[in-house]
């Protein structure tokens, strides 16, 4: 029986608090929180890759597959159980990631980034061309249930939030252990100095491959949750600017802690929605300025604000 670490206890408590907040929060906030948690899941995948020194501009590929799996499973296969739909997304994504990973793990830096972007855009192109899937209009997601429980009218947002929170908590706990495991540490070592890692007898490609596939699975869960919440899927999910947003959030939060993507995702979504409301004509400007300020003053992401006390005084 593994002892829960302090971080993990905090994570569980936060997750519970978030889930319970659905009882008192206004509906729009519950909805937005669910989207933020879903985005954070994808961002966790980006962070996994960043810890290995790779920037992926193509997480949108798996995000989109997860979303479309939910949509297609509901519409064409008649599956309405949320967990089953998420599972279908994971299966499809992992299959594709195992294939792509064979190619992508050979590359680094910008080549990795561009290739991931390319594959994501290829999926976008395929979806845009497919008239039967609604092309750029996408299509709606069916009403869903969880293990037989059908949320009543008005409870749907809360159910969505709970589902997202539970899945995110599971992922966060898993990643917390993963980052401390030999696999996770090997990733960081690869970022620092690949050649030495190879000399030590660890297969770089194998480590990166497993890392990539797990990150893909996380992206898929995020996409499935988004589809379940928003009730609609469309090819934009695979467009490179969406992947760019995830990278943006990852850098906002920093790679220091498992909880960082969540905080960053919340801040990003809240800043964006208020910017849109208050500055409908210049919200991109506001977003860009906020980002710049954070990068300039908090290069290790927002999380560094909370760890400064632990940093030894220089």
């Amino acid at each position: 029986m593994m002892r829960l670490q302090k971080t993990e206890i905090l994570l569980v408590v936060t997750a519970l608090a978030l889930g319970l907040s659905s009882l008192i929060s206004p509906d729009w906030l519950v909805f937005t929180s669910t989207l933020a948690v879903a985005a954070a899941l994808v961002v966790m995948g980006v962070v996994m890759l960043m810890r290995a020194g790779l920037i992926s501009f193509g997480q949108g590929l798996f995000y989109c597959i997860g979303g479309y799996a939910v949509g297609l499973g509901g519409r064409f296969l008649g599956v309405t159980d949320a967990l089953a739909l998420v599972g279908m997304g994971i299966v499809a994504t992992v299959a594709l990631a195992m294939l792509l990973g064979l190619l992508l793990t050979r590359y680094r830096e910008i080549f990795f980034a561009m290739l991931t972007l390319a594959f994501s855009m290829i999926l976008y192109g395929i979806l845009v061309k497919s008239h039967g899937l609604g092309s750029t209009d996408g299509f709606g997601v069916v009403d869903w249930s969880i293990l037989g429980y059908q949320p009543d009218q008005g409870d749907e947002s809360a159910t969505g939030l709970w589902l997202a929170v539970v899945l995110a908590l599971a992922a966060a706990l898993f990643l917390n252990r993963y980052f401390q495991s030999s696999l996770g540490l090997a990733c960081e070592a690869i970022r620092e100095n690949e050649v030495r890692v190879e000399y030590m007898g660890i297969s770089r490609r194998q480590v990166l491959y497993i890392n990539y596939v797990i990150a893909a699975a996380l992206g898929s869960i995020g996409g499935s949750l988004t589809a379940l919440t928003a009730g609609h899927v469309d090819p934009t999910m695979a467009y490179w600017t969406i992947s760019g947003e995830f990278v943006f959030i990852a850098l906002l939060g920093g790679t220091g802690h498992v909880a960082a993507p969540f905080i960053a995702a919340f801040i990003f979504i809240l800043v964006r929605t208020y910017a849109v409301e208050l500055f409908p004509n210049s919200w991109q400007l506001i977003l860009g300025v906020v980002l710049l300020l954070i990068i300039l003053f908090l290069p290790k992401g927002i999380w560094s604000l909370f760890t400064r006390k632990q940093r030894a005084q220089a």
Partner: protein
Amino acid sequence: MGHSLQPKPWQRTLLGTATSLAIASGGIMGFAGSASAQEGTFKVGLVTFLSGGASGPFGVPAAQAAETVIKAINEGTLPAPYNTKGVNGLQLESVVIDEAGGPTKQVEEYRNLVQRQNVDAVIGYISSGDCLAVSPVAEELKTFTIAFDCGTPRLFPELESPKYFFRTGLDATADNVGAAHYLKETRPDITRVAGIQQNYAWGQDSWNDFQLSMKQLMPGTEFVDNQTPQIFQGSYGTEISALQTSRPEIVHSSMWGGDMEAFVAQANVRGLLDQATAVLTTGESGFNRFKDQAPDGTIIGGRGPFGAFMPDNDLSEWFSKAYEAQHGVPPSYPSSKMAQALLALKYAADNSGAEGKPSDEQLASTLKSATFESVSGTVRMALSGGHQALQPMYYGEYHYSPETGPELRNVRSYTGACVSPPDGHDAQEWIKNGFPEANCN
């Protein structure tokens, strides 16, 4: 090398405090929610493109039209029967949201509009994807919503038993059936037809509907090519070459905005438009902009009786004058369509029989199956159970001279019953079966 930019301790504390305050206030703002509309006002959310490629030709003209019309509504300066102040006596207040970001984001923003900003109604949506994503949410949140422009024929077939969602504009099927009728009447001898559409749902649906219609109305037509460049591609050199090698007589295009203008200019210079006549289903938005770049005889449509196709009536005269006075150019079709949606709102509010602010249910039941006057003539909400407008489709030829400016000639109109399928018929099936129950007289 490079000066260190590590924040000093006091800076860090300041930043840390600032960030925490920001997050906290964001949370508090979130819980508190925006103030509701003041007493005596009706708050309407307007969603339209304020950034990106669709903002120039559609989003901003629509937002500008809203400004003009709302001001007039509140002052009571509209012509009859809308000459009362406000909507059902309430001053009309608007909140404008950018439609950019994709359907998922728009679902989020719609919920924010309704639940955080507490708007009483929503008008908007140019992009079909956004309409399709938002319409079920409108029904879920039971909020009176009018789509003013989006052109997907899938909207009501995919929306089960709509109660609160309405569309005061026409769809792509009407555009393209109308175009086919116009060609049959004015160019009966043509046989070679090509197309160039933006490669996304709108372009694909448009070409599909046009092809099906032409096969019914002009069965001898040969479709020699259809080019599908990416949306916002801007430069169509290769596509024009490909079209030229197939030597069409007619080039059909559903392209819009900057893409349409660029294509017309490039095709004109390359000589494609000497050989072939262009049929531009959204061409009216370029009516005041083409100048001599579009050759005389180019066939343009305005997605209905909008913009330059508005019939002469008190409302359209007033609107053209007021819009041009306030914004410097005559209104194009997106502006007219936004005006129409606002008039629909006023009609629904004024005739709802409510004391004070009408509820969503009252507004919806008033607009359902209603007939009201607009800048485009009479609008009958006659399709999709009373939620979809039925209006005639117009097409005309563009002519330009430097002295007299642009004008429309040889304008033909086709009744709504001629270009839109009756309820219960799938649009594509209706066309393939030869337009059963259509009334084109």
